[in-house]
């Protein structure tokens, strides 16, 4: 009996030892942008997965039970925050039954805590204002400065949870920033072309992008955030486009292009489908590519 126990003990020691050495942080993110930045910082020391796809509206992701399986063993749950995921995240976190990634757990990582928030409403707020985000606009990753801040946040949290690899995370983070800085120098001409140019945006999701590149959003296709355009609002948009000479309607691939085409037909404005996230169009597989692509496409449209 004792002999059998000793054998089991030995087998146990041998079985556990190699796994402990190979243990990686399991990171799940709500969007592909956070996923890519997490991979940049974590490298081969983490495994990563994402819930939403880049061509999907992140407000309306379905809380499918298969996502629960991804989350139940996660060490880190990183999300955009500012209520972007409020329609589905609570169900997934409840379903996952994983205390590590619930609010208050070490793996609960709200990326919005590291960025400068725009459009935080003042005074009384109610739903007559549309799908207003009471804590501010959550589409902040489209400003490269916020990309850097998110990377630093990941580095800090990964190092906290996995101190043995802190040096690797720091080095990966520096390398990511260096690549982003270099890419940023490459699109200075695009920035110059974009700055001050009037454009129409579908949703408030391009506000941070505009803050960064200086494009002048003269109208939104949505009369209020999340509210589909009405005929009377479209008439106003058409008048605004004619008055300001706006060059492009910037919209995500998941909105109905037919409505934008209607405005284009009346005014001659270009309809520009830009991916808001990594994977939003084929071939855009990382965050730096996403920023490069969006900047180049917009510059070409407004030149």
């Amino acid at each position, binding site marked *: 009996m004792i002999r059998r126990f*000793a054998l089991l003990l030995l087998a146990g020691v041998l079985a556990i030892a190699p796994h402990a050495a190979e243990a990686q942080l399991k990171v799940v993110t709500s969007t592909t942008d956070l996923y890519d930045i997490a991979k940049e910082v974590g490298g081969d020391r983490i495994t990563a997965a994402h819930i939403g796809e880049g061509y999907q509206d992140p407000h309306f992701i379905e809380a499918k039970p298969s996502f629960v399986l991804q989350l139940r063993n996660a060490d880190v749950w990183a999300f955009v925050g500012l209520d972007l995921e409020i329609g589905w995240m609570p169900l997934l976190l409840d379903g996952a039954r994983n205390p590590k990634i619930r609010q208050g757990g070490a793996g609960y990582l709200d990326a919005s805590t590291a960025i400068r928030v725009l459009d935080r409403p003042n005074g009384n707020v109610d739903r007559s204002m549309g799908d207003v985000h009471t804590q501010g606009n959550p589409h902040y990753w489209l*400003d490269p400065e916020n990309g850097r801040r998110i990377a630093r946040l990941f580095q800090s949290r990964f190092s906290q949870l996995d101190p043995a690899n802190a040096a690797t995370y720091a080095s990966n983070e520096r390398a990511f920033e260096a690549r982003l800085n270099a890419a940023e120098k490459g699109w200075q001409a695009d920035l110059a072309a974009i700055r001050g140019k009037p454009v129409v945006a579908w949703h408030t999701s391009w506000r941070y992008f505009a803050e960064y590149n200086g494009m002048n959003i003269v109208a939104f296709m949505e009369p209020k955030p999340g509210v589909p355009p009405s005929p009377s609002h479209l008439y106003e948009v058409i008048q605004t486009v004619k008055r300001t000479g706006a060059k492009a309607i910037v919209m995500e691939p998941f909105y109905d292009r037919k409505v934008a085409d209607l405005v284009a037909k009346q005014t001659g404005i270009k309809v520009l489908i830009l991916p808001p996230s990594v994977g939003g169009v084929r071939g855009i597989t990382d965050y730096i590519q996403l920023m490069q692509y969006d900047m180049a496409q917009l510059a070409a449209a407004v030149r």
Partner: protein
Amino acid sequence: MRTIRFTAVVLLSCASLAGAQQPDSAARSRQRADSIAKAVRDSIALMKELGAGLAAPSGAAAPGSGNVGPQSGPANPRLLPDISAVGDLVGDLSPRGSTQADRSRFGVREVELAVQSVVDPYFRGDVFLGISDVEKISIEQAFLTTTSLPNELELRIGRFLMPFGKQNLTHRHDLHTIEYPYVIQRLLSDDGLKGTGLWGSRVFAPFGFYQEVQVTAIDRLSRPVDSLHTAEDVNRSLGGLGFSARLRNYVDLSESQNVELSFSALTGKRERALGQSYLVSVEQPTGQFVPTDVNAIVARQTTYGADLTYRWRPLQQGLYQSFILQSEVMRQVNERVDDLVAPCANCATVSIAERARDYTGAYVFARYQTTQRTFLGARYDWLQNPENDGRTLNAGSVYLEWYPSEFSKLMAGYEGLSNSGDRLVNRLLVQAVFSLGPHKPHPF
């Protein structure tokens, strides 16, 4: 002796393994200490930078145009729970008069008040009060849910919608039809079967797809009916409590299609009305036996069910297109009781001619999204109706659902209802639902 020697060798081996790793471990410890120190330095640097960023917005950001997240303070500094209300208004424009229980043409079917919050690091609490002209104020649901049990376990204590089938778990105002399918109304409950007791569930995936088992033990299967008097309480013995089990199986067929096939069972004792009253001796809480008129027996009722849901929603065009096909089938098995046995040794057994039979029912429902805010739905119901001696009920209905926003819904429905071949009853129903406050999203 050999065994002891072997054990010693094993322990020595382990020790030597540890010893061999010691120089390595020391180096790792130093490296780890360095890493921690660096992580702390980096964190401090990050916080300083964030603070500096707040004080002096950089680059393209307009001065004063934003706040860095952590500087803004908690969103809910007073730790208030989420409080919300849902109004469910129903109109009945049927050509031959209202088909509602209270004969109203327009009515507030229910107002649901919800108070929901995390209780402490171990539990969250959910309270749903239903307010209606019929029931006044009732506790629809009130339960405490564990949040930190290991092994994907979850326990719930309180009153909850019973995990039986698919639609019974959905609040009535959140259905895509105006009323529950007839199989749920007649075999479970008009407004969804609820139970008070314990709920346990566990998620697992031994075959690579999502599975969850949900079991409950509840005080009783049905709400007590004041007009029914039995010789003993339904939950007098533990075997008389209600018990249920459900196995969920969910599979992604592709990124835009998925299917869920689940099986449920529910058993317990409940009152069943007799055609007449009988005088029997009934044991009182004091232990005495008192002759009492009883007009109902306590009999076991067991219900089995299977539900299938297919969903299609393309990820990119998911705002504008989706389709759901759903079906549930249930069979209710009722215990045959020949004798009404009074619970006293010397009392005579009364023979009764109690009629009991089993009932089966099903529905098929489909819903197609036509625009961002508009859906078309249709349902077919078939049921051996317990309220009509098991004669067949057939109903076909169509629905037009329009969501002005996520927080309001307007629906119009037509239903053709036939009870065992009687004349077709035409029903025309309209519904308005509105939601105030931060209502927690409903389960997938």
